[in-house]
C-alpha cells in the first residue's frame, strides 16, 4: 500500500530524538567528571562548596525544564514556578530541621536524672526552632514534620494541590496572556509576604536553616554528602528530561503546542484547553517542588526572599536566554546564566576601572543580565540553544514577521523551525 512508504514507523523515543541521548550522555560524563575531581570520592580538585553550587545548578536546570514545558510548549507565562520550588524546599526543610533538633534535644536531656517525657522533648524542639520568632509551640503546619515520608509527600502534594486549585480558578475563567502572568505573580508575592510574617509558623524572615546537616549523619563529612546530593540532582534532572521529552514528543505535545499557538482553534477541534493547561500547570509545579526539595539541602538555608516574584522572573529569563520551546535550551539557559550569575555576584569577576568610574560587577551584573535578555529577545530569539540549531542547519521559516498563531504565547517567526 502506498501510504506505508509515507508514514514513519514508530521508533523508540531516544531514537527519534537524538538530542535526548546526547543530553543524557553529556550529563553522565559531567557527573562522572565532577565525582572524579571532587573531594568526596575523587582527587579533590573541586571544592565541596563548588560541588554544591553545581548540584544546585542541576536543580535549577530541572525547574527550568518545568518552566519550558509550561511556557515554551504550552504558552502559559507563569511567574509562580519558583514559589512551587520554594514550597518543595520548605517541605523538606521542615523535616530536616525537626529531626536534627530532636537529636540535639534528646542528647542534651540525656544528662538529666529522669528520662525526658515525649512532651518535654517536643517542647524542647519547639523552643529551639521557634525561639527566634518568640514562640515555643509547634504551629499546626508542623504536625507531620517528624515524619520523613509525610514531608516527602508534601514536597509533591502541596505544590501540586496549590497549582491545581489556582490553575482551576484561573483557567476556567479563561484568564490568559499577560493577565495570567500578573495573577501568578500576585500568588507568588502573597505567599512570600505571608511567609515573611513571624506568625506564619515557618520562622518568618529567618526561614529554615542548617539544612545541609542531615540528621544522624554528622559523622559523614560534607564533602561526601555534597557529592551524593549532586548525584541525586543529576539523576533527577536526567529522569525529568526523559519524562518531559516523552510528554512533549507525542500527540500530547502536539496538543499543547496547538494550545500555545491558537487555543480557540484547539477548542473547536474538541480539546478541552482548560484541562490541558491545568494538567501541564500542575505537573510542572510538582517538578518544581521536587527540584526545590533537592536544591535547599545543598543551599543550607531557605527564607521567604527565595519565593519573591523576582526569582520566578529570573526563571523565565533563563528559559528565554536558553531558547524557549526546546528542552535542552531551557537547561543550557539555566546552567549558563545561574553559573555566570554566581561568578559575577560572588565577587570573582574582576572590576573594570574606567578611570572616572569603576564597574563593580556585584552591582552591575543585574543590568548586564537585563540587557542580554533584551538583546536575546530582539536579535536571537532562539537563544543559546539556537546555536545547536545552527549546527543542525535548522532555519527559521520565512513568514514576513508573522507569528505562528494569534495567541500571546504563540511562537514567533524567529523562534520556530522551518
Amino acid at each position, binding site marked *: 500500500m502506498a501510504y506505508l512508504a509515507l508514514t514513519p514507523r*514508530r521508533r523508540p523515543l531516544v531514537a527519534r530524538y537524538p538530542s535526548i541521548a546526547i543530553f543524557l550522555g553529556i550529563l553522565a560524563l559531567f557527573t562522572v567528571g565532577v565525582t572524579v575531581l571532587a573531594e568526596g570520592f575523587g582527587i579533590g580538585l573541586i571544592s565541596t562548596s563548588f560541588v554544591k553550587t553545581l548540584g544546585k545548578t542541576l536543580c535549577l536546570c530541572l525547574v527550568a525544564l518545568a518552566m519550558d514545558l509550561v511556557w515554551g510548549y504550552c504558552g502559559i507565562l507563569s511567574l509562580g514556578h519558583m514559589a512551587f520550588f520554594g514550597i518543595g524546599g520548605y517541605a523538606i526543610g521542615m523535616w530536616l530541621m525537626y529531626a536534627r533538633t530532636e537529636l540535639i534535644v534528646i542528647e542534651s536531656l540525656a544528662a538529666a536524672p529522669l528520662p525526658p517525657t515525649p512532651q518535654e522533648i517536643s517542647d524542647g524542639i519547639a523552643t529551639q526552632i521557634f525561639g527566634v520568632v518568640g514562640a515555643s509551640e509547634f504551629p499546626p503546619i508542623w504536625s507531620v514534620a517528624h515524619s520523613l515520608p509525610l514531608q516527602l509527600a508534601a514536597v509533591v502534594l502541596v505544590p501540586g494541590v496549590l497549582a491545581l486549585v489556582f490553575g482551576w480558578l484561573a483557567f476556567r475563567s479563561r484568564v490568559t496572556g499577560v493577565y495570567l502572568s500578573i495573577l501568578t505573580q500576585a500568588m507568588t508575592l502573597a505567599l512570600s509576604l505571608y511567609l515573611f510574617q513571624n506568625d506564619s509558623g515557618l520562622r518568618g524572615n529567618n526561614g529554615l536553616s542548617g539544612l545541609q546537616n542531615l540528621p544522624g549523619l554528622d559523622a559523614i563529612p560534607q564533602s561526601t554528602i555534597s557529592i551524593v546530593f549532586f548525584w541525586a540532582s543529576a539523576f533527577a534532572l536526567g529522569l525529568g528530561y526523559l519524562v518531559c521529552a516523552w510528554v512533549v514528543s507525542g500527540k500530547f505535545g502536539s496538543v499543547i*503546542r*496547538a494550545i500555545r499557538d491558537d487555543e480557540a482553534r484547539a477548542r473547536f*477541534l474538541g*480539546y*478541552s484547553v482548560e484541562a490541558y493547561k491545568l494538567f501541564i500547570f500542575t505537573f510542572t509545579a510538582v517538578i518544581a517542588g521536587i527540584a526545590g526539595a533537592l536544591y535547599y539541602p545543598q543551599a543550607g538555608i531557605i527564607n521567604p526572599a527565595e519565593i519573591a516574584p523576582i526569582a520566578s522572573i529570573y526563571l523565565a529569563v533563563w528559559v528565554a536566554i536558553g531558547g524557549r520551546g526546546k528542552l535542552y535550551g531551557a537547561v543550557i539557559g539555566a546552567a549558563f546564566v545561574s553559573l555566570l550569575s554566581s561568578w559575577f555576584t560572588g565577587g570573582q569577576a574582576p572590576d573594570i576601572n574606567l578611570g572616572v568610574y569603576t564597574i563593580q560587577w556585584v552591582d552591575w551584573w543585574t543590568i548586564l543580565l537585563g540587557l542580554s535578555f533584551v538583546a536575546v529577545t530582539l536579535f536571537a530569539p532562539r537563544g543559546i540553544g539556537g546555536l545547536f540549531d545552527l549546527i543542525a542547519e535548522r532555519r527559521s*521559516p520565512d513568514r514576513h514577521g508573522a507569528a*505562528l498563531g494569534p495567541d500571546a504565547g504563540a511562537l514567533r517567526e524567529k523562534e520556530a523551525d522551518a
Partner: protein
Amino acid sequence: MSALLEVSGVSVSFDGFKAINNLTFQIGAAEMRAVIGPNGAGKTTFMDIITGKTKPDEGHVLWGEKSISLLSMSESRIAQEGIGRKFQRPTIFEDQTVADNLMLALKKNRSPLAVLRFRPREEDHAKVADLAEQIGLTAALHRKSGELSHGQKQWLELGMLLAQDPRLLLVDEPAAGMTPAEREHTTEILVEAAKTRAVVVVEHDMEFVRRLNCKVTVLHEGSVLAEGSLDHVTANEKVIEVYLGR
C-alpha cells in the same frame, strides 16, 4: 425526517446591536445547505452560536435525536458531539506538520490522559495518508503546515474537518482564494460529505452556491429572509432588494 440541528427563536445583541434576531433554522442529518447574506447579516455569529463561542440572549439550540441543548456546553464539548467548523481565514497549526495537524483532528478520545497514552497505530497513519490524498497534500505530509500556500492551507483545514468525522460541518467560505479547478474539487468533497452528514456552507459566491445545488437560506439583519432553492430565493422580491441589489 427529524432535524439534526434545530435553532429556534435565537437572539443575541452586542452593545445594543441585534446581531441575530429571532432566528430559526433546521437541518437534517444528511443535508447540504448554503447560507448566504450580505455583510453583517449575522452569518458568522450564527456559526459562533452553534459552536458555543457566543451564548445567545434567548432561544434554543437543540441537537441530535435526543434533542439535547447545546447552550450549556463548552466549545470543546460541542466539537466532541460532532460539530466541526472551518473558518474563513485558514486556521491550522502552522508550527506543526501536515501529518501532525491531521492526527490532531482525527476522531479519538480527547481527554488529556487518553492523549498522553495515545500512540498512533497503523490504521491511524493509514487514515491520515488517506485524508492527505483526498486533499492533495500527500507530498507535503511531513512539511510544516506554515509553509503551505494559502490554497493548500484551505485544503488542510478541510481535511482536518473531515478527519474529525463530524455529523455537522460548518464551513465558512471554503472556496475563497481558490482556482476554478480547486473550487470544483472542493464542491465534490462537500457534496460527497453531505451524503452522510449535514453540511452548512456560508458563501458569497453565487456561482459556487449554484454548483452545490442545494437548499439556500438567506440571512438578513440577523434573521431568515427567505429559504428554498436558489432559483426560488433569487426570484424573491425582498432578497433582490437587500442582497442582489437590483
